[in-house]
């Protein structure tokens, strides 16, 4: 096995796993979701590229949720205060707090955060992945960060790190 090719595949799979994990927030479900999508990509002889794998993961996740009737349709509020930059604040968090904080977000919110913060997608790119308008994506990123910040600050206060 050429090491370089294998490393590239591993990197792609790890990124795919993180994306699946952002949707499920459960390690076992994320692994299963990644495997289903990977099998589909290989079966189709499709390009082993990030966008293609992410798209396969996303469609499988939505299918699965629809089957389980767990999709909660919620209106996305596009109104935000553009002057509010409070999410830039430096705050205390450890892994456990972050895990709990992220579990309070919806899959779409975690997905948007991962794509923007970790994968470096632009709002326009996220809009084309999720099918939401760019303005909604920007608002979603802002509100998700704000929710995280509020949760983490309240936890830090409780634990005396505020």
């Amino acid at each position: 096995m050429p090491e370089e090719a294998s490393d590239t595949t591993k990197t792609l799979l790890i990124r795919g796993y993180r994306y699946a994990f952002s949707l499920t927030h459960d390690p076992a479900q994320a692994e299963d979701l990644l495997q289903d999508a990977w099998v589909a990509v290989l079966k189709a002889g499709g390009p082993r590229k990030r966008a293609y794998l992410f798209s396969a993961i996303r469609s499988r996740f939505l299918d699965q949720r629809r089957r389980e009737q767990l999709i909660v349709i919620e209106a996305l509020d596009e109104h935000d205060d553009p002057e509010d930059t409070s999410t830039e604040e430096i705050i205390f968090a450890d892994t456990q707090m972050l895990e709990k904080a992220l579990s309070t977000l919806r899959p779409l919110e975690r997905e948007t955060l991962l794509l923007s913060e970790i994968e470096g997608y632009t709002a326009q790119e996220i809009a084309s992945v999720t099918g939401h308008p760019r303005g909604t994506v920007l608002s979603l990123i802002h509100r998700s960060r704000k929710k995280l910040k509020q949760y983490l600050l309240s936890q830090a206060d409780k634990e005396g790190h505020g």
Partner: protein
Amino acid sequence: MAKRHISTHLREYYEAQQPSAKRLAHLVTMVEIAKMQAPGIPVIPTKTRTDHASSGFRPVFVLFFAVTAALAFFFFRPTHDVTQSVAKEIVLNHNKRLAVEFTSENYAELGAMMSKLDFSLLRPKQIETQGFRVLGGRYCSIQGNLAAQIRLADETGRIHTLYQSALTEDLKKLQTGDLEQDGLKLTLWREGGLLFGLAGPIN
């Protein structure tokens, strides 16, 4: 982690997430198997494809693929601890505090409302004497199986979440009893052919 920007916390958190080494090796192996086939031939040959030149080799490829896939599955099959996995899932769901979809104060009525469940909702005897009040329920899933999530209030008004699910082969392997997960008390038990999980604050 310490005091940082949210972006930094998020990056560190997600960059620490990886699939298990076994699962990763299994997925990489699948690529190698696919590569062994002639370019353009899907991993699993489709019925519509006709390739007379290579048709003589196809049974060999298919047999090779089947044997390798079986071996790969045997050696790299997922070995999640089902008890831990279920406990984590239940506690995460409890912490989400999602709104109930069906409001009722008794199990029978709630069972009638939640008609999509593939089992009959039971009033669990194990917690009969604990004075819980039923507030309502919603659909959820445990290990990918449809389950009921019932919100209960104890005598002091604290919220607990009760889960009921049909017993699958995986769930039959689960260890029952009391455990603590992420600062919550969790009780798992089987009753009337169902799996029950109760998550709530530690006394």
